[in-house]
């Protein structure tokens, strides 16, 4: 069998199972998206399993091939060269200089194909002074391999369209070394000096027999396909292995089959209302500042002068030791003397204010699965108290809303951190405060023990609260979005 077909056939066989997979997956996707967010539906996206990714790559190649009519493996190199932008490839292919295009993509032009191969190896690449002279010139039925330096029958000598021949064993070792040790797939070139012609998939599949290396190669090719392709993105959840496919790039939420919901544009967890740019800046700031904050958290609070343990009894960080014989003036956060704390202190204080709240919601979200488990137990218990399955569903819904509110609140602190004060920012902060209070109350209700006496009472309270939270969350988001549209937001810090 032709080895080119082999690589693509292997994946095509999986096509059958893909369909099954697909059918199982579809309802899952819709079930996870059927929450209170309507935004997912406005941004169409498709979840691709590893097999579907390969299939998608093959489809892209086939699409282009019906037009350009080149071997699939050559088309893949060309597509990769254009970051899998089909239109751009086709445009360049028909409007531009094809010879130049092939040279830039490091492949031998099909029009020159067959001239170099099979004939001698006197290709003009050895013109520079530093290059080796072509040793592989065949003398009768044997030839020298320039890698292992063995004289071998010409039947075991092979190469790419450039005509540089090496023995099959050396090729196999060369490719294995590149794939396994260097993790390269797209950019493996002919081993001849100053040649640069890229190795195609068919050649790899033909010359590498080790299954482990072949799998790694296919894996690397798929990975590069996803990473290069603007319309694809790996699900960032650990060990997920699926990719999301969209029709156009936008900073909108996408939901993977594994349940992870993230921003397609920046791959962070979905972060409405803050924009990707500011979130990126924030994450970087948190990383840079984590040492400072860790130091602060780790330090026990003792008066830096007399070592008496002290408690902070108000919002102000300007501390005065109560030990009458000490009375040291110092800063609560850094424990240094109070005196030099000017504006940099205020900036740190401001950052800590936002950071603490951001972290608080993030931490709470991490316990999400525990809360779901706890709620499930509660729901079971309530069903024992003559409530139907339908009647107890409000609890799950409440947790859903709670998590959404925390996620939104978490990112409102990033948004607010970079926001300049104006009339709109005051409204925003009111909305934020209101949502935060309601969310904490909802959280409290859900933590409470549920006894049969208060069952009806609590149901009403929880329902009212989560509906309120949900409404307030929508109001807050709508206000921020309106602000984006009307350009009401002003930022502090450089863009």
């Amino acid at each position, binding site marked *: 069998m032709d080895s080119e077909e082999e690589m693509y056939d292997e994946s095509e066989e999986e096509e059958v199972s893909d369909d099954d997979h697909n059918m199982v997956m579809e309802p899952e996707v819709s079930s996870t998206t059927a929450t209170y967010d309507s935004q997912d539906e406005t941004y169409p996206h498709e979840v691709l399993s590893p097999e579907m990714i390969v299939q998608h790559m093959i489809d892209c190649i086939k699409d282009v091939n019906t037009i350009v009519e080149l071997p699939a493996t050559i088309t893949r190199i060309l597509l990769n060269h254009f970051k899998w932008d089909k239109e751009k490839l086709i445009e360049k292919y028909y409007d531009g200089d094809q010879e130049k295009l092939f040279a830039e993509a490091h492949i031998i032009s099909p029009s020159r194909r067959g001239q170099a191969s099979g004939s001698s190896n006197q290709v003009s690449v050895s013109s520079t002074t530093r290059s080796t002279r072509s040793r592989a010139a065949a003398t009768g039925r044997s030839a020298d391999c320039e890698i292992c330096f063995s004289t071998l029958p010409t039947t075991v000598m092979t190469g790419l369209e450039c005509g540089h021949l090496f023995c099959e064993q050396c090729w196999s070792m060369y490719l294995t070394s590149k794939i396994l040790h260097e993790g390269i797939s797209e950019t493996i070139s002919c*081993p001849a*000096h100053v040649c640069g012609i890229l190795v195609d998939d068919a050649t790899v599949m033909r010359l590498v027999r080790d299954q482990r290396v072949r799998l790694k190669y296919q894996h690397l090719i798929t990975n590069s396909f996803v990473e290069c392709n603007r319309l694809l993105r790996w699900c960032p959840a650990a060990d997920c292995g699926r990719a999301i496919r969209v029709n156009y790039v936008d900073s909108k939420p996408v939901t993977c089959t594994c349940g992870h919901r993230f921003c397609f544009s920046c791959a962070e967890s979905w972060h409405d209302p803050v924009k990707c740019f500011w979130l990126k800046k924030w994450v970087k700031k948190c990383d840079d500042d984590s040492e400072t904050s860790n130091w602060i958290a780790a330090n026990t609070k003792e008066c830096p002068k007399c070592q008496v343990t002290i408690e902070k009894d108000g919002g102000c960080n300007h501390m005065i030791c109560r030990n009458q014989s000490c009375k040291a003036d110092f800063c609560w956060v850094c424990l240094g003397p109070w005196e030099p704390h000017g504006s940099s202190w205020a900036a740190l204080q401001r950052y800590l204010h936002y950071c603490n709240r951001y972290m608080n919601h993030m931490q709470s979200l991490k316990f999400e699965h525990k809360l779901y488990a706890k709620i499930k137990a509660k729901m079971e218990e309530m069903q024992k108290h003559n409530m139907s399955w339908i009647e107890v569903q409000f609890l799950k819904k409440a947790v859903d809303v709670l998590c959404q509110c925390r996620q939104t609140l978490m990112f409102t602190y990033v948004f607010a951190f970079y926001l300049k004060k104006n009339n709109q920012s005051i409204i925003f902060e009111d909305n934020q405060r209101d949502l935060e209070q309601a969310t904490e109350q909802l959280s409290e209700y859900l933590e409470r023990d549920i006894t049969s006496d208060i069952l009806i009472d609590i149901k009403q309270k929880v329902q009212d609260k989560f509906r309120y939270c949900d409404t307030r969350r929508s109001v807050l988001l709508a206000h921020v979005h309106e602000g984006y549209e009307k350009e009401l937001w002003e930022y502090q810090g450089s863009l």
Partner: protein
Amino acid sequence: MANIAAQRIQREFREVIKSEEVAKCHIKLELKNDEYTELKGEIAGPPDTPYDGGVFQLDIIIPETYPFNPPKVKFITKIWHPNISSVTGAICLDILKDQWAAAMTLRTVLLSLQALLSAAEPDDPQDAVVARQYKEQQSVFRQTAKHWTYIYAKGPHREAELEAKVSQLRGMGFEEHKARVALSTCDWNIQRATDHLIS
């Protein structure tokens, strides 16, 4: 060591031994151990360069993945050249990095290094100090390189004037090589070289 690496070096070694360049004393290759993992190379300074007449020794380490990865090569002989570190002997040359190809050999490496001595690439420097001098003070650079070749590589051109300056600093109690480096770095200005040594 991988079979192919040892096999390759054995054959390459034989190839270099009988090559015309060896016959003309332009390059030399010696084994340092029986495993073919370490070798000593030697190249003659090319004519019409400040290195003419000098003999430069190289340290060659063969990685296990040879010939799919390049050999590790550095100068043992001290040399004043923009692409070679005057301190460590490390070389900045594309074929010893990403431009290495499995079909290249130690012979081509030695010949490429010889070519590098003929044509420096100051825009891709290994030694910034030397590269600056090469670009801004060609004649001082040539004189310095000749002097280093004479001192360290048995070169024929004695640069009496420069030697005198080194002696002068030695008289002040500085170690000879350090004094030479300082003077070379400061374009042979005694005052600046002294400051350089003190700071």
